[in-house]
């Protein structure tokens, strides 16, 4: 199974630092010496979680229809809210949730029927009800949630984790982004490494496929024997190295690593992505659907030491229910409620929930007022970046907790507003990283995921 990352001798690192090549060359030196890329970093302090599965409900799930009940909307049904804020489009009167809420667990936290199965695990979950993004638009909010900056090109959370902690499995990409049927909006920028070494970027897998050979194109070749390929790669490495002399281009090193990883993936990935190796009862528990399968694959990946798996709901922005939210959200939630609940049970029974962090959320929430088309209600909700919910469960999380709140109607964060930087700082903290110390020197200054902000949400830590 997993192995602990081995720190390399300090002297070599110091040497590299002094030579001005920076961290990006580390892998290269490892490669030269041991012939394989090695897990690079180690945490600042004992981590509470070693890996992350992130359910990304792209498009923006409605918080008032899922994890942030607002009975007051019923009172105002059909009437204007006392205060509405500017959003992207015109919204009208209060729009009470069409979904039933019910209390669950010891904590008695109310969750809507959309996530009734997930809610069975509410005592393991900490809900943050006071998230805020910066603008009511998808693209900048996706960039903010993934990379910590709405506008400028910055490395994604997964890339920072790879850079800071390395992967625990040298035979699989340490950062995997799965999205069935194509890319989400902003595509590969959501898992970009930006100025971090290229080997840290996310590897995209189209999880609409079922066969290993299609999930990962060209994972097998009928034309070459593995042993012959190994020897070819050895020669490849030698020739690449002799060519590299005088070039010292970090991207060249990333290329070398990608070939080595690809070679090793041929054995390991065929296993990791092959769900036929799972017992029938587990496959049934997750469900034999696109989302059930991608969630089960995620578990198989983290079990093998993959650091960060992002599970996107689908191509484009499926959760963007500007109209007819009742039918749309019901359909979407039905696709993932069962897999999420199955994952939580499964991890728990394996003892893995203790050191696995589950993150659930979108790029923003939705308005409590109804979206209008002229004078007509669209029975949907507009984007809302002023207040929305995300939740976390697993390693280091105090379950059955609610952190922060939105106002009476769910329009804006009220108590303890939480920025995306705060969320990132907390995630890094759980992974054993001080977000102020995870820096990368680039273009004359040190950069961090949380820029100059970020407060750890101590209240949700166990």
């Amino acid at each position, binding site marked *: 199974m997993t192995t602990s990352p081995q720190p390399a001798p300090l002297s070599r690192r110091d040497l590299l630092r002094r030579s001005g090549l920076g961290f990006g060359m580390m892998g290269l030196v490892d490669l030269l010496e041991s012939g394989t890329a090695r897990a690079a970093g180690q945490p600042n302090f004992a981590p509470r979680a070693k890996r992350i599965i992130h359910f990304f409900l792209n498009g923006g799930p409605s918080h008032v229809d899922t994890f942030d009940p607002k009975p007051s909307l019923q009172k105002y049904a059909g009437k204007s809210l006392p205060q509405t804020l500017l959003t992207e489009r015109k919204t009208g009167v209060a729009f009470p949730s069409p979904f039933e809420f019910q209390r669950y667990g010891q904590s008695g936290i109310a969750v809507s029927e959309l996530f009734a199965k997930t809610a069975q695990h509410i005592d393991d979950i900490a809900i943050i009800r006071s998230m805020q993004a*910066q603008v009511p638009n998808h693209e900048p909010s996706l960039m903010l949630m993934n990379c910590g900056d709405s506008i400028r090109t910055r490395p994604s959370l997964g890339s920072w984790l790879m850079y800071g902690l390395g992967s625990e499995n040298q035979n699989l990409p340490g950062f995997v982004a799965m999205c069935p049927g194509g890319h989400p909006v902003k595509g590969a920028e959501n898992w970009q490494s930006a100025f971090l070494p290229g080997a840290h970027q996310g590897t995209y897998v189209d999880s609409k496929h079922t066969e290993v050979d299609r999930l990962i194109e060209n994972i097998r070749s009928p*034309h070459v024997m593995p042993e012959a390929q190994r020897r070819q790669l050895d020669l490849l490495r030698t020739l690449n190295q002799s060519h590299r002399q005088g070039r010292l281009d970090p991207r*060249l090193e990333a290329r070398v690593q990608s070939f080595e990883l690809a070679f090793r993936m041929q054995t390991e990935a065929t296993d990791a992505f092959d769900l036929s190796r799972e017992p029938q009862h587990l496959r049934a528990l997750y469900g034999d659907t696109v989302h059930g399968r991608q969630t089960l694959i995620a578990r198989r990946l983290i079990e093998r030491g993959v650091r960060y798996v992002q599970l996107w709901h689908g191509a484009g922005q499926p959760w963007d229910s500007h109209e007819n939210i009742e039918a749309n959200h019901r359909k979407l939630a039905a696709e993932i409620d069962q897999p999420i609940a199955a994952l939580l049970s499964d991890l728990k029974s394996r003892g893995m929930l203790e050191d696995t962090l589950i993150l659930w959320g979108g790029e923003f929430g939705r308005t409590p007022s109804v979206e209008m088309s002229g004078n007509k209600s669209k029975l949907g909700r507009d984007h809302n970046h002023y207040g929305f919910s995300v939740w976390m469960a697993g390693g280091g999380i105090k379950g059955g907790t609610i952190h922060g709140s939105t106002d009476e109607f769910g329009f804006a964060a009220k108590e303890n507003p939480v920025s995306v930087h705060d969320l990132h700082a907390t995630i890094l903290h759980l992974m054993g990283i001080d977000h102020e110390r995870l820096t990368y020197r680039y273009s004359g200054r040190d950069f961090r995921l949380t820029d100059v902000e970020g407060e750890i949400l101590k209240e949700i830590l166990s």
Partner: protein
Amino acid sequence: MHHAFQPLQILTLLVATSTGAQAAGDARIDFSRDIRPILATKCYACHGPDEDKREANLRLDVRAEAVKEAIRPGKPEASEFWKRISTADPDDVMPPPSSPKPLTDPERELFRRWIAEGAEYKDHWSFIPIRRPDVPVPATTNPIDAFIQARLRHEGLSPAAQASPPTLIRRVFLDLTGLPPSPEEVAAFVADPASYESIVDRLLASPNFGERWARHWLDEARYADSNGFLGDGLRPNAYRYRDWVIQAINADMPFDQFTIEQIAGDLLPNPSREQLTATGFHRNAALNTEAGVDKEQARFQNLADRVNTTGRVWMGLTIGCAQCHTHKYDPITIRDYYSFYAFFNNTVDRDEPKSKAPTLAELDKDRRQTYVHLAGDYARRGPDVMPASLSALPPMKRPTQPEPTRLDLARWLVSPTNPLTSRVAVNQIWGTLFGTGIVSTPDDFGATGEPPSHPELLDWMASEFMHKGWSRKRLIRLIVTSTTYKQSSNHREDIAEIDPLNRLLSRQNRLRLDAEILRDSALAISGMLVREIGGPSFRPPLPEDVFEVGRSSNWQASPGGEIYRRSLYIITLRSVLYPLLTTFDGPDAADACVRRERSNTPLQALTMMNDPAFVEAAQSLAARVLHGNYHDTKERLTRVFELTLNRPPRPEELTRLKAFFDEQQKRVKAGGNEALKSLSFIEKSVATPNKIEAATLVAIARVLMNLDEFINRE
């Protein structure tokens, strides 16, 4: 402690606020660099161009408005603006406490100093008319070098040495034609490096030039051979537009004419069939033709796509933001948007009668009135609007008819007073030849885009481009014959810290080949490439599972040699994209793709190692050399090397290859039939006594084709 976690050293709030902001001690505040970015991200949402969202009737994006009440130039303490941003009173402070974007102290200080210095505004750089800057002294043979080197001198840097002749010839071949040179072409250039310019001229005249550069334009034109959406119906004649692009680029059609024909070819007097075909540009968008689709809504979306694409491709503006609301950062109102939309509101889709090429036409009866669509909702009509260009840009010449037409719009785009089109076009070409544009956000020349690294050079080239008849080939020739272009791309340790992205161009950039060039190179060196230009798109062999999902269930690879044509001719079905291309960042044709990513993932390595297209190319390369007229293994190895990497092997490389060959040959002999599996595609063409040598050469060819040197242009 691990070194990755360095203590924070110089991270100050100030440096973090803006890409160009200088330390607080800097001489004078620069509005564009220091102030506008803060205003744009933290104030304009409520005090910017958008009338509907404007609070307290205050706008801060126009100086005349801002100085009426809020700002008293020279007197920050007397300015309401300053009071409101510096007060501690939560009822008065701006931005209000509910804003997710409060100001930081250094930002307040910048504002204070800016007001104290007179609160000068400056138009956004890309909206300022293009002037022709003087070429810096000392003059160089090529003005481009004068600009680049002046800046390098200013930064205390010197340019890199010139690339070696083999590197340079490979670079210019790949950049201009998308195909590598033959070993003979390399040898001739190495023997006579003075022939560079005549080689450039030959490449510019080659029909492969149009194929290579058409691909970029087709990315921008979101070209595909199918409709998209669930049905993804075929567009069997879409290729006629693609061929028009290739021919126009090969004929060096002036970019202004190229623009006019695509936007409004149908409105030219007595349009030729080609001019009609050119209007296929706006027939390329995805189209939802399913039953049950709201036709009016689909039409609205389709027209909005035409507006947005025109804005991005020609003007580098994210004009689409104004579809629902006045642009938050750039001076584009929702009224502007629908006035622009009005140019397209009476277009109908027709097909050219003879060729059946998809074209645009203008309705003459039952014309539609255009309205502002509130919140971007097709069903919500606001005030009616007339066709008009963007209000923040120089106006159109008075139209010939009572109201301006698409033809007027096209001419306005390429009029010498339009500050955007030439800059955007020149930047695209530069970006193709250096990997990054002078503006690194080629589709955002607005307030949230990156400012140009060399503004004078950009303007000089934009002006030169127009002066020299909007000739693509002349501009490309000027660039590729510059010393700047010909520099070595080797990593420079001395700039790694100060200019890690090489924005100053103190060397060339090393670029991962585009998906198409990678496949075409493999075909070219293996001798399999079929060079026929134009015609219907072909279907490459695909693994079954790919098209099952895409619903085009009757996939059949095209017959004969067609599958070995250049990648430009691979059929683009929006629901069944060819994995080899998408893995290497080929676009999905959903929207205009103005800039491709250059990612690097292990999936690419798997493709290079195992994709049947590359496997077959390696085998054919081996067979090509085996069947050639060479004396011994060493000659054959040298030949494989030269074909793949466009340079002779160094002695130590040849020694390594030979050692590998000997070792490999032993193993193939010992492995028997199993080892001959690697001959799969070429097995029948190799005579039995040669099989062992062939299998060994295949292994060598595979290695060389997977080398970083092959995958990149240096």
